[in-house]
Each structure stands twice: as structure tokens, then as C-alpha cells.
């Protein structure tokens, strides 16, 4: 019997985690916490620890989301067992073998994993999603301690919700150090506006204070998955690519034909973004007749 904590029944990452657990063999119990339970990572983990003991679970899994990773780390700490985060595969045995993502997915690790139950989180898109029935609903165990409950969501700030969100945008026009200044982003904003897209940027840009961190794409920024990612003046560091490799297509604009971004690009324009980007905007206006 394998236990999978899920966020809900419908979302794709939960369906992938359940499919992953089915791949281990044996029964799978998908569980979630009742809608009224305020998120409390250590208390939820304590509940999962007790459930795993009660059912004699051979594995406890979760999707490798912020909450999935956090919960499984608490479960592991409470049990004194290892946990492997962001796994793309898990083969039970003694020891079990895992393949997991490192460096935000830029590198894979093959590792041996000890412990019983096996503890792991499932990296997105490791397996195809499979629908599953209504998960079992859990209430926080009465055995959760005061310390467990000391960390508990007590309030919520709703996002302002203006404009297209970077994570969901169909088009992302992104600028790097090559943009040269905060003002230089005018041409990037103009093109993004014409395409109904969002503005992104590299870490070189946020570190310089040209754009807010909420615009940063990459390993420590936002992960995007647009129809097209237009990278202007970005060299293509692995940590940046970790955030935009989910894009269906990538167009890179850079005067340096050797820039590593071109190795991941579908389309290349060799040139200065300050000439190329306004020319693209002008051409869009021309074909639209505006």
C-alpha cells in the first residue's frame, strides 16, 4: 500500500503523482486534508506519519510542489528517514533507486535511497497524468503537538491581479543584461503589450534593480510555459533556462552568434535588440494597419 498526499483530485501534478505511485505496484490511497483545515505543515505531516503506520505503507509520496516537498520533509524528519525530492523515477528494492532533478532540472542524479517507508516527491511530467477518484479526506490528528501547530496559515493576502501573469502568459518577452538599463525595457514592454504578453527578465536584470524580482524567469524565479518565449539580450545560463524550457518555442535575439541561448532556441535573430525589437513592433503595427 502506497500513500499519496494530493492537493486536489483534478490538478495535473496530483494525477501524475498518483500515476507514479501506481507504477510502484500495490494499492494506492490518495489522501487530502479537509477544506476547512488551515495548512499546518508539521501537523499535517504528523497525521500522515500516523496514517502510514496504521496502513503499513511501503511508500509515502507527494507531488514535488512547494507544499508536497515541505510535507514530505517534515514526515522524513519525524521518522528519521531519508527523503528524495523531485524524483522522475523510483524503483523499490534494497536499497531503492531513484532518479531525481537537481539544479532546477538542469542535472539528473541517480541515487540509492534507504528507509521504510520510502519517501519521495514526484517531479512534474515524470509520468503521464491518470485520473483518480475522490481522495480520502483527512482531519489533523489529535496527536499533533503544540509545536506542530505553531506554524499554521493565519491569513491571506489576495494578489492584486493586474495584467497577464508571467507564469500563465501565452507570450513572454524577456530581457537580459543586454537591455542595458531600466529605461531600455521600454522596447520590451512595447512588444509584450502588442502581443498581449508578459515581460520577463534574467537575474542580471533584477540584481541591477532594473526590474522587480516578480519578473525574473529561472531556477530562483518564475517558471514559464508560453507558446513563445522571446529572449532579448540573454546569454542562456543554465539557471535561466531552468525557468523557460517549458516554452513551446524560443526566439533569441543576440548579437553574439556563439551565445549558448542559441543552442536551446528554435529561432534566432543575430543583432542588437535595440534595433531588432522596435523593428518587430513596427512590423506588427504595419500588418495590423494601426
Amino acid at each position: 500500500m502506497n500513500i499519496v498526499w494530493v492537493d486536489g483530485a483534478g490538478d495535473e501534478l496530483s494525477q501524475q503523482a498518483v500515476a507514479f505511485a501506481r507504477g510502484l505496484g500495490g494499492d494506492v490511497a490518495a489522501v487530502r486534508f479537509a477544506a476547512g483545515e488551515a495548512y499546518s505543515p508539521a501537523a499535517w505531516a504528523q497525521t500522515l506519519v500516523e496514517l502510514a503506520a496504521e496502513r503499513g505503507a511501503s511508500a509515502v509520496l507527494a507531488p514535488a510542489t512547494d507544499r508536497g516537498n515541505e510535507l514530505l520533509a517534515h514526515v522524513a524528519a519525524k521518522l528519521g528517514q531519508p527523503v528524495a525530492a523531485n524524483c522522475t523515477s523510483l524503483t523499490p528494492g534494497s536499497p531503492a533507486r531513484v532518479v531525481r532533478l537537481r539544479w532546477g532540472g538542469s542535472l539528473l542524479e541517480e541515487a540509492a535511497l534507504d528507509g521504510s517507508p520510502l519517501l519521495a516527491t514526484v517531479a512534474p511530467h515524470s509520468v503521464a497524468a491518470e485520473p483518480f477518484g475522490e481522495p480520502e479526506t483527512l482531519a489533523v490528528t489529535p496527536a499533533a503537538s503544540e509545536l506542530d501547530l505553531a506554524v499554521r496559515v493565519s491569513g491571506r493576502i489576495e494578489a492584486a491581479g493586474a495584467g497577464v501573469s508571467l507564469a500563465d502568459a501565452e507570450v513572454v518577452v524577456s530581457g537580459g543584461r543586454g537591455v542595458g538599463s531600466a529605461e531600455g525595457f521600454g522596447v520590451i514592454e512595447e512588444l509584450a503589450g502588442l502581443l498581449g504578453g508578459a515581460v520577463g527578465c534574467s537575474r542580471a536584470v533584477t540584481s541591477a534593480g532594473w526590474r522587480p524580482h516578480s519578473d525574473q524567469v529561472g531556477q530562483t524565479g518564475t517558471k514559464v510555459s508560453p507558446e513563445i518565449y522571446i529572449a532579448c539580450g540573454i546569454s542562456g545560463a543554465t539557471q535561466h533556462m531552468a525557468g523557460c524550457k517549458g516554452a513551446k518555442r524560443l526566439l533569441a535575439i543576440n548579437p553574439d552568434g556563439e551565445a549558448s541561448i542559441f543552442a536551446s532556441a528554435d529561432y534566432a535573430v543575430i543583432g542588437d535588440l535595440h534595433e531588432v525589437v522596435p523593428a518587430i513592433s513596427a512590423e506588427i503595427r504595419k500588418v495590423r494597419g494601426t
Partner: protein
Amino acid sequence: MNILVCVKRVPLTGGRMTLTEDGRAIQTRHLGFTVSPHEECAAEEAIRLVEEHGGSTTVLTLGPAEAEEQLRDMLAIGADRAIHLVSDGEEWDPQATAAAIVEAVRALPEPFDLLLFGNESADGGNYQVPIRVAHSLGLPCVTGIKALSAQDGLLRCEQEVAGGRDVYELRLPAVVTVREGINLPRYPSVPGRMRAKRKPVAASTPQRPAARLRMERLVVPEGPGKQAEILGHGPEAAPRVVEILAEIGVI
């Protein structure tokens, strides 16, 4: 407020990762080193809290002898002292890392009010060392924090979630992991670098226990194997770009 910040030395890999011959590490012969942006922000946050409330910042790393460079970087932006757990250069698994940090914290005469970490290490991405440390020390732990304030021993933390932010309130002492974006870290100044050379670094050499998550081999995933279609040079490429955008259906 006495604050501990934990940072990990990692290579700055640039555009391509190359592995050593045995496939167990990144080839770093020509690379510089840094710490994760999350951890830089943790150090910056500690220094700001100490500027506001008084106290001191201690920065800790478990890493090879060369990791003193990262400790000096953090001392240069304003940390007061450092603890270097000198490793054998081998990778320590997250359980062993957490245990070494806990032992070092327990060995100090004064407990910390706040222990700050990155949300995840840049290279390992284990999402667990701080939670294990909190568990062993009997402290509460909040993760992925993008805004933090302290008042009269009470912490208020904001965590980004889909559609907004969740708020947590808890008492010190506590463990908090932060994400890049919580602040914009300062750059070290030349006088800061000079002062850093004279700040104390306490070194010790913990023993590495057997790993229970044992890295065997690293693999560079196959690239997308793309051959970019060159649409042109300079502004003359614009009409072809717009054709492509129309084909994709975004115009």
C-alpha cells in the same frame, strides 16, 4: 536578536554543465563559486534585522576548505562572525548536513533567536535541511518566505501561493527559509571586504556519517537537440519574425 544564516558553496555553471570523468561532480576547473540567491537573501535579511533590532549575525557553511570564500563574502556584506564546518569535499546527504548543523548550534553557549536558510540549495534542491534542523532543535519552521518582520518576539511571515500570499505568525525562536525576492541584497563594499578579513571564522572538522540518500552518478539531461533557424541579421529580420508569430497564432 542573534541570527544564524546557513549557506552552501556551489559552482557558477554558465551556459553548459560538464561533469568530471567519474560523473560524480560538475567539472569546476574553470568556474567561479557562489551561494544560492535564496541564501544571499537570507544573509541580507539577517543583516537588516540586526540593523533594526540589534544583536549579531553568524554565518555557517558545511563545505570544503575553499568555502571560506563564501563565508568571507557574507562577512563582507555585514555578517559578524562565521562557523566553517570543513568537509572532506565529498557530498554530504541532507540528513548528515542537518545533523552537522545541529551539532554546531548545540555546541555554542548561546542559542539563536532565528535561524535563516535558503528555501532549497542551488545544486541539491533537497528542500529539507532546514526542516530537519528545526525538528532536531524543537523549533517551528516556516518555508519559502517572501516578507518577514519581527516585533516583540513575534514573527510575521508571508509565503507566495497561487493567487496571493499566505500569512504565518509565530514566536521566536524559529527557523525560517527565504526565497529570492524577499529583498535586494547589497553588494560588498571595499571597506566591507577589508573588515571581513579580520572577522573571526571558527573552523571544525565533523565526521561524515554514511549517506542514506546516496548519490551514485550525475547525468546531464539530453538537450532539446535544436538547431535554431536563423531568421536574419538585425532589423531586416522583423518581417520574417512577424510571419512566424502569425503562424504560431499569437498575432
